C-alpha cells in the first residue's frame, strides 16, 4: 500500500507502542537524521521532479536533503553547509537546484546534480528570505534581508539585477508569479508585481491591527494563495500574537473578503485565566485544495479553510514548538518540523533536545468543507 498516495490516513496510530513521550503525539512519520539544531525552513521539490524530495535548513548551519519515498520512508541524500544559520530555502522550477539563505549574509545555489554549492547573493546583513522567480522573460532569485533591501540575482553575476529599498528589515516574503509580497519589521507590508521586471505595486497597512488598542503585531510569516484560475489572489499573514490575516489584493468587497482569525492560543474558552497567545511560525497553502496550514510556538499545527472560514483540524500539542511546515507538490504530504523556535529566549534553549521533522498524510484532512 502506498502510504501517501492512498486515501486512508495513517494518523490513526499504530506506529510503535504508546508512550508518555509527547514528541510525536500525532503519530506521524519521523524523518531520519533530522538536523542537530532548530529547523528554520522546509521545502518540497517542485512538480517537475519525479518523486518527493524534502529540503530542510537549520540553525546548525546546514541544509539537508531527503528523499521521501512513497511508503513514507525517508532517505537522507546529502547536505550542504553555510557558515551561519540557514534561515530559508527554495527550489528552482525544474528541481535541479536549491537556494539557501543564511545568517552568514550570503545565499547559495546548491546544484543537486553535482552536489556543489556556490554563492549567488550577498547582503550587508543576514538574509532572511530566498525565492525563485520564474517569469517568461527572466529567471532570478529574490533575497530579502535584515539590511532593509530586497535584491534580485540572476545567479551568474556577483551584482544584483535590481535592489529595492525596504522600509524596514525583511521578516518574511512569498512569491507566486506575477506577485511577490514582503512583510517587514515595524508592520511594513509591500506587494510587488513581477511582470517585465519587479516593481513595487502597493503598500498595504497591516491588516493585523487590533481595533481596540490600535496596536499592531509583529509580522512573522506570509504565504500567497491563488484563485480558481491559479493566479495569486492574496496572502495570509501570520503574526507573532496568534493571529492570521487573510488579505485579498483586489477583492470585490474588501470589508467582506478580508478578515483575520485567531489561532495558536490556549485557554480559548476559559475567560477566568488569561489566554496564552503563541507566535504563528509558518503558513502553507495546500497546492490542490487551497486550504491552509498554520504551525505555532504552542507546538500545534492547524488546518483551515479560508473560504468556508472554518477550522478543519488542530493537532495535539507537541512537546516543542513547530517551526516550519510545507506541503509537497501534489498536496499528499504535510511536513512539519518540531524544534525550539527561540520564542522564550536562550534560557529555554536545550541543545540536547532532539529536533524532528514529521510527515503526515494531508489528502483527506485538508479537503475543504463544502466540497465532498
Amino acid at each position, binding site marked *: 500500500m502506498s502510504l501517501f498516495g492512498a486515501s486512508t490516513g495513517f494518523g490513526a496510530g499504530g506506529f510503535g507502542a504508546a508512550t508518555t513521550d509527547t514528541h510525536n503525539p500525532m503519530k506521524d512519520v519521523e524523518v531520519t537524521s533530522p538536523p542537530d539544531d532548530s529547523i528554520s525552513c522546509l521545502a518540497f521539490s517542485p512538480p517537475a521532479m519525479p518523486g518527493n524530495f524534502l529540503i530542510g535548513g537549520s540553525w546548525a548551519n546546514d541544509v539537508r536533503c531527503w528523499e521521501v519515498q512513497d511508503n513514507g520512508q525517508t532517505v*537522507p541524500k546529502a*547536505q550542504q553547509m553555510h*557558515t551561519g*544559520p540557514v534561515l530559508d530555502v527554495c527550489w528552482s522550477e525544474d528541481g535541479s537546484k536549491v537556494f539557501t539563505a543564511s545568517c*552568514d549574509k550570503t545565499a547559495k545555489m546548491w546544484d543537486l546534480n553535482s*552536489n556543489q554549492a556556490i554563492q549567488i547573493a550577498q547582503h550587508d546583513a543576514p538574509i532572511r528570505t530566498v525565492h525563485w522567480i520564474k517569469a517568461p522573460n527572466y529567471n532570478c532569485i529574490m533575497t530579502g534581508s535584515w539590511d532593509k533591501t530586497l535584491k534580485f540575482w540572476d545567479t551568474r553575476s556577483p551584482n544584483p539585477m535590481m535592489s529595492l529599498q525596504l522600509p524596514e528589515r525583511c521578516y518574511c516574503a512569498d512569491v507566486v508569479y506575477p506577485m511577490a509580497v514582503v512583510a517587514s519589521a515595524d508592520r511594513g507590508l509591500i506587494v510587488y508585481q513581477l511582470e517585465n521586471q519587479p516593481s513595487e505595486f502597493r503598500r498595504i497597512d497591516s491588516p493585523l491591527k487590533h481595533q481596540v488598542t490600535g496596536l499592531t503585531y509583529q509580522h512573522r510569516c506570509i504565504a500567497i494563495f491563488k484563485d480558481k484560475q491559479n493566479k495569486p489572489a492574496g496572502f495570509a499573514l501570520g503574526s507573532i500574537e496568534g493571529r492570521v490575516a487573510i488579505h485579498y489584493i483586489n477583492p470585490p468587497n474588501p470589508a467582506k473578503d478580508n478578515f483575520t482569525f485567531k489561532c495558536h492560543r490556549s485557554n*480559548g*474558552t476559559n475567560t477566568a485565566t488569561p489566554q496564552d497567545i503563541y507566535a504563528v511560525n509558518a503558513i502553507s497553502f495546500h497546492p490542490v485544495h487551497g486550504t491552509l496550514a498554520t504551525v505555532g510556538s504552542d507546538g500545534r499545527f492547524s488546518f483551515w479553510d479560508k473560504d468556508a472560514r472554518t477550522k478543519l483540524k488542530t493537532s495535539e500539542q507537541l512537546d516543542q514548538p513547530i517551526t516550519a511546515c510545507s506541503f509537497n507538490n501534489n498536496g499528499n504530504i504535510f511536513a512539519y518540523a518540531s524544534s525550539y523556535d527561540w520564542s522564550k529566549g536562550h534560557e529555554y534553549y536545550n541543545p540536547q533536545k532532539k529536533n524532528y521533522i514529521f510527515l503526515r498524510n494531508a489528502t483527506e484532512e485538508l479537503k475543504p468543507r463544502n466540497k465532498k
Partner: protein
Amino acid sequence: MAQVEAERELCLENTQPLRKGLAVTGLQLSHQEGSCHAAIQQQRQAFELELRMYTGDDPLDIWDRYLKWTLKTYPQGSKESSLTAMLERAVQLFAHDKKYYDDPRYINLWINLAQNSMEPLEMFSYMQANGIGLTRADLYITWAEEFEKHGNFQKADTIFHEGLKCRAQPMDKLQQYHNGFQARVAHQALSATEEEHEPARTSMVDLRPRGRKKAVAPVNRTEAAGHSRRLNLQLPRRSARNIQKNPILGFNENQADSLQAAQLKLEPWMAPPSSRANENQVMPEQLADIKIPQKSWCSASSVTVPASRLNFQPFVEEGDQTPSVSACKIDPEVNTVLSDRPPPSKEESALEEGGGGGVKEQSMYLKELLLNGAVELSIEELRAEHYFARKRQEIEETIQQQRQAKERLRQQIDEKQRLLQLQQSQQRPQLSQQEVTGTDSMQITECRSGTVLPSSQPNAMAFQIFDEGSQSGSAHGSGNPIPCEKDMCPDDVFLPAGDRGLCFKTPYPFPGGSIPHSERTLSKNFPERTESLNEEVVSGHKNKTLCSSPEDTQDFVKAAKIASSPYHAMGQRAVSPNAGILTKEPSITPQLDADSDGRKKLSPIQEASLEAWGSMASGPTSASSVCTNSGGKAVHHLGRLKESHAEPHPEAMDQNSPCIQPVIEDPCSMRVRQRLLDQVDLSSFPNFYSEDGPLPMAEEDGVLILGNDTFATYSKMDYENFSIYAGQGGGDVAIKLEHTAVPWDFYIGSQLRERLARDSQAPVHDAGRCFLFQDGCVTVHKASQQSTLREVAEESFEEIVASLAMQTVELVRLMHSCHLIHGALSPDTLVMNRRYDEPMDELGAAVALDFSCSVDLELQPEVTAAHILPAAQNFITQDLLAPSASPYQVDLLGIAETVHTLLKKRPMRLVKEDSVWTLEEYQEAHPSDRSDAFWSKFFRTVLNPGDRPSVSVLTELLEDMKKSTFACYGA
C-alpha cells in the same frame, strides 16, 4: 563653495541645539544622507541588540549611550531617529525601579523626553509628583528654563527655589543657573523701559521635528539676554505692562497663579502625560450623515455579526464581538462531528472568532525582549545575535590564545638568548641552578612550538569565513542546470537496493586538506557552545574556562553519529561514479572553482570523517596551545638572581602563635592549626617558601610575583575566606590566596603526598607550592584543567558528571586512606585532574584547591567523632549523620552533596525510607533506566555508609562505578 556653505547653514537651521554642543561627526553623518546610512543602521542595530543581550545589572548604561548616540546622529530629529519612542520606552522600563529615580542618566532620559514632548511642563510636574529626579539640579534647571521660555518668571524662580530647598545636586550648578536667571530677570527689568531693537541672530529655538501647537516666535540664540528680548518682541503688550508695574519682582500674572506656583502642588498622576500627538489620528466625532441602526450595534455586542452586514467595517474581528466559539476549544474529536454541520453555522464557528473583549491575553513569547528598544526585533534576529556573539567570542579567544602563544614564544627566545649570554660569561654559581629550570621550560617550549604552529593555521583560516562574501565575484560559473531526468534513469549506480534517488555526483573528489576541516569544525562548534560562552561573557571571566572545551566530546559523538547515518552510505555512492562524470563534463566547472569551493565537493562521508578527525585533533591541539611555562617571565627572574634565595623563615610563623589554649576548641580553627603547625617543620617540606613582607597584591589579568616565580593571573573566584585565581606560570595553575598566615592547605597537601608515597601502588600527589607571607599565604596548584567541577558539569552530559563523581570519590578515598578528612567538598573548589577529553587509562582523582576545613587525624587524634567537625553540624541537624559517627562520614555526605549539585544543579532533597536515606528524585527510580539505576545506587551508598570504614565503602563504590557502562570513563 558658497552654495555648500549655504546648504549647511540651511541644515543647521533645522538642527536641534544640544546643551553639550553637536559632534562634528554626527553633523557630517546627518548631512551625507545615504552614504552613511548603512553605517548608522548598523550602529543602531548594535544598540538594539545590546539592549536585548545585556544581562548585567545596569541596563540603563546602554540606554544612556543609545540616547547620546541618537542625539548626535540625528541632530535634526526626524522620525527615523525614533527618539521619542526610545525615550518613552526607556523611562517606562525603569519606572518601576526606584533606585534609578535619582540616577542622573535616568533623569537625563526624562528631561529629553520632556523637551521632546508636546507639554514639557506636564512632564516635569509628573516627574516631581512621582519623585523622579528630585535631587538632581538638571531637572530644576530645565524645568525653570521651560517656564522662563514661556515668560513665567515667577514660576521659574519658584522651581529654582524648590530645587535649592531639595538640595538638588550639583548645588553649585543649580545656584549658578539660578544666579544667571536672576541676572536675566534683573537685566530685563532694567531694560524694560528702554527701546530695544536690533534683534540679534534669531532662530527657531523651539522648532521641533514635529509640528507644534505652540507658536513660539524666533528668539535669540545668545543665551543671556535672549529671553528678555524675546519677551519684548513676542509679548509686547502683556509683559511690558507687567514689567512696568513690578520692575524688580519680574512679572506677576495674577495672585492666584503666583500662589499656586509658589506651592507647586503635587498632582497625582496615573500615567505619564502623552509625549506626542499622533498625526492623522481621528478623534471621536459625530458621524455626519450615516445613521447606524441601534439594534445592530446591540446585537453586535452579544452575537457574532456576519461580515456582510457591517459595510463600513474593514475587518470582521476584534473588540466588541463575543468570544463565541474559539478555535482552541474545539478538540479534534468534536471537530470531526462538527464537520457535518451545515455550512452557515460553520461560518460563525471557527474563523470569525469573537475578539477578546473580556478575554485577557498573555503573550507566550519574549515580548518584552522583542520590544525592548526603540525598534522591534524578531525572534530570529535575537537568536542570530546570540549566535554571532558566540562566534565573535570564539574568534577573540583564538586570537588571544595565539597572541599569548606568540608572546610566550618570543619570551622564550629572549630568555634563551639571555641565558646563553649568562652561561657564557659564567657569572654566578647560582646560574647552574637556574639553568636547570631554564632548560626545563625550554623543552616545554620546543614541544609546544611543534603544536602551536599547526594549530594557528586553522585559526587563521577561520577568519576567511567572514570574507567569504568576497568570493562572490569568482565563485560563479557552472550554473548549468542539468535536467535531472536525463541522468536519473540509466545510471544504475544510483539505484542501490531499489532506491530511486537523486543522482548526486562529486566530479572533483576532494583530495583532502585543511580548509574544509577548519571550516567544518568551527562552524560545527558554534551553535552548540552558545550557552556556555554566553555565561562567560556575562561573568566577564574571559579566561575562566581557558582550557576547557567540553563540547569536543559532544562534537565527536555527533560526528560519529553522522558518519554512521545514511549520509554515510550516500557518500560512498556518490564517490563511486565520479570518474565517469569527470570525463563527461570537465569543462562545466573551471578548475579555479574546484579549488575555491573545494570543501563543498566533499562527499558527506568525507566531511563527516574529517569532522570527526578534526574534533579529535582539536582537543590536544588546543590543550597544548594553552599550556604555559614558567619561563614566561624568566627575564625578570634573572634580574632577581642576585638577590638571595628566600630562605624559609620558620620564625615567621611564631610571630602570630597564640599563648593561651582554650580547653575545647574547634579542630579547624586557626589557633589550633597554628599550634599544630608549630610542631611541624614546614620548612623541611619541599616547595615551601617563606617570604618577608606582606601578601602581594593580586588582581585579575595581572601579574603575581611569588618568590622567584612570576605568575600571570586571570580570572578570580572569591570564596568566603580565600580567593582562587586561574593563572599561568610553569603551566596552568590555580593560585589560592588566603589572608591568614597558616599554610594549612599546604600542610594537608604535603601530608597527602607523603603518606601516599608510602604505598608504591598509590598515585603520586602533587602538593603544589606554598608561599608564606607575614599576613597570608599563597598556595599554587598545578591545574591543567582550570574549570571547576561545577563549570564543567554546567555544560556536560550526565555521563561526564559520572566521571566527575568518580574523580571526587577517588580523591576522598585517597585522603581517607591517608587519615585525612577533606571536610568541605564543594564543586567550586574541586577541579579535574586533566582535560577530560584526553584519553587516560586511569581515572585519577580530582584536584582539591581548598583544604581549609580539612583535618589530619594523625596529627589531631582528638577528633574521634563527627560532631567535633564544624562541617558536620549541618548534616547532624538534618539527622543525616549521627553525632558520634566516624568523622570520615562527613566526606561521604560531602560527596553526595557535591555530586548532586553537579548533577541536578540544586540542593539535595532527602527522604528517609526504612532508615535508609534516598534522594527524592531517585525514590522511585526506574531500575531499567541506566541513569536512574546508576545514580540511585551511588547516592544510596554514600548516604548510608553504616558502620563500615569509609575507605572500603569508597573502594567498592568506585569499583562498581567503573564496571558500570554508564560513565564515560568507566571501563
